[in-house]
């Protein structure tokens, strides 16, 4: 009788709970709380938080290879590299590269902010992470969720959950993390610099841009092809003006659907046994450093460009080189307005911001080319 009761109890999850799982419930609940109450990237943190809860319920088998539901989402969606490129299709359909084309020298700022990625890569490697893990951690500095997930799934799947959550959390905290650095690194006079009115960008330029960049970038860095191909296809939908339905689907329906299938399995990679290790938790520290370094190098590069050019750039624009679109550009705009209430930087900041997206993908492509097994 006692034996029967015991084996009955053993079929429930209760008998298999570990303290680590309960810690993970708390983490999942905190993410859900932040998503709902603070609206921090709710579209991602809400499903991620729920995924964390699910995978830390013992015996559910949701992440069991070949059978678990979330395992299938993960395997066919992320491991097969389908979802991050589809998100990029939507980003391409959303993104107006006009501000970048209007002021092409601002592209450098989008590239400059990638320095944080590389600096953190070297720092992480020096601290004992293997070279592929270090590349994935550095990528957080690019502030681009899908790219971070893409590279993690290829180089360091064991860190995917932590890197994705770090990337999305810090993206949500751009308005908190960046402004103090921006104020510290620039003088008020610099923040007041007004940008010259940009040249008009023709429709033809905008239309040629996705086609020409597809050729150029994929020929140069073939490993970036999946992300660049989808990004530029989405942008071609947008600029062609003849496939409004496809553009709409890429931006809305498809984007929303894949977002569901992205967040849930990411959360599900965060089982207590994998996540609660010092090595994984320390990623949050390194990710923050990566993010700060990217902001700093962007600002410094803008100041450096000012030493050599007649037409001064407002150095705040450098901070928009991290590819959190459009949050980083909005932050630049707001910090600019604090210094001069009639200095409207938003559209100028969109230039380095969208260039940052491409820059981050290229950085990922370079890592994959050099490191992928």
């Amino acid at each position: 009788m006692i034996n029967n009761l015991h084996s009955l109890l053993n079929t429930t999850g209760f008998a298999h709970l570990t303290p680590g799982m309960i810690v993970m419930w708390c983490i999942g609940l905190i993410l859900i709380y932040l998503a709902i109450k603070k609206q921090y990237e709710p579209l991602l943190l809400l499903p991620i938080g729920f995924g964390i809860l699910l995978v830390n319920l013992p015996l559910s088998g949701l992440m069991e290879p070949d059978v678990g539901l979330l395992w299938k989402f993960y395997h066919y969606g992320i491991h097969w590299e389908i979802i991050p490129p589809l998100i990029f299709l939507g980003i391409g359909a959303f993104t107006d590269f006009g501000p970048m084309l209007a002021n092409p020298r601002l592209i450098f700022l989008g590239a400059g902010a990638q320095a944080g990625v590389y600096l953190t890569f070297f720092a992480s490697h020096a601290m004992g992470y293997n070279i592929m893990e270090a590349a994935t951690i550095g990528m957080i500095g690019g502030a681009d969720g899908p790219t971070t997930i893409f590279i993690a799934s290829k180089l360091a799947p064991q860190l995917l959950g932590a890197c994705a959550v770090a990337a999305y959390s810090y993206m949500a905290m751009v308005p908190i993390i960046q402004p103090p650095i921006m104020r510290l690194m620039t003088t008020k006079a610099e923040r007041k610099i007004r940008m010259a009115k940009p040249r008009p960008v023709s429709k033809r330029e905008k239309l040629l841009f996705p086609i020409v960049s597809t050729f150029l970038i994929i020929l140069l860095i073939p490993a970036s092809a999946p992300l660049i191909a989808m990004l530029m296809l989405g942008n071609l939908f947008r600029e062609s003006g003849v496939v409004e339905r496809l553009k709409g689907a890429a931006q809305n329906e498809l984007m929303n659907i894949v977002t569901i299938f992205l967040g849930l399995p990411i959360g599900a990679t965060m089982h207590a046994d994998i996540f609660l290790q010092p090595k994984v938790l320390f990623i949050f520290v390194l990710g923050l450093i990566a993010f700060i370094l990217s902001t700093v190098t962007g600002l410094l590069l803008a100041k450096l460009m000012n030493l050599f050019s007649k037409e001064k750039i407002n150095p705040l624009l450098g901070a928009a080189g991290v590819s959190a679109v459009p949050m980083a550009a909005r932050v630049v705009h707001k910090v600019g307005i604090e210094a001069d209430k009639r200095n409207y930087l938003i559209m100028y900041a969109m230039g380095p911001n969208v260039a940052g997206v491409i820059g981050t993908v290229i950085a990922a492509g370079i890592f994959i080319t050099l490191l992928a097994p």
Partner: protein
Amino acid sequence: MANEVTAPLPGKIIRMDIETGTTIEQDTEIMVIEAMKMETIVYAPCDGVIEKVVKKVGDEVEEGDLIATVA
């Protein structure tokens, strides 16, 4: 002295505090433009009286578009 109010950034006008005959003072709020889901206050470029407003709430404007003339 400027005698025109132009859009300082592209976006959609979501608030307009001026109409024909409004007296404006430099650097006071005259309208709000929404760009990239962010509301930006536009300030009067000069002192004067509004002669004519050519845009209205809900209009999409490009940078540099004329919004009102000032007498």
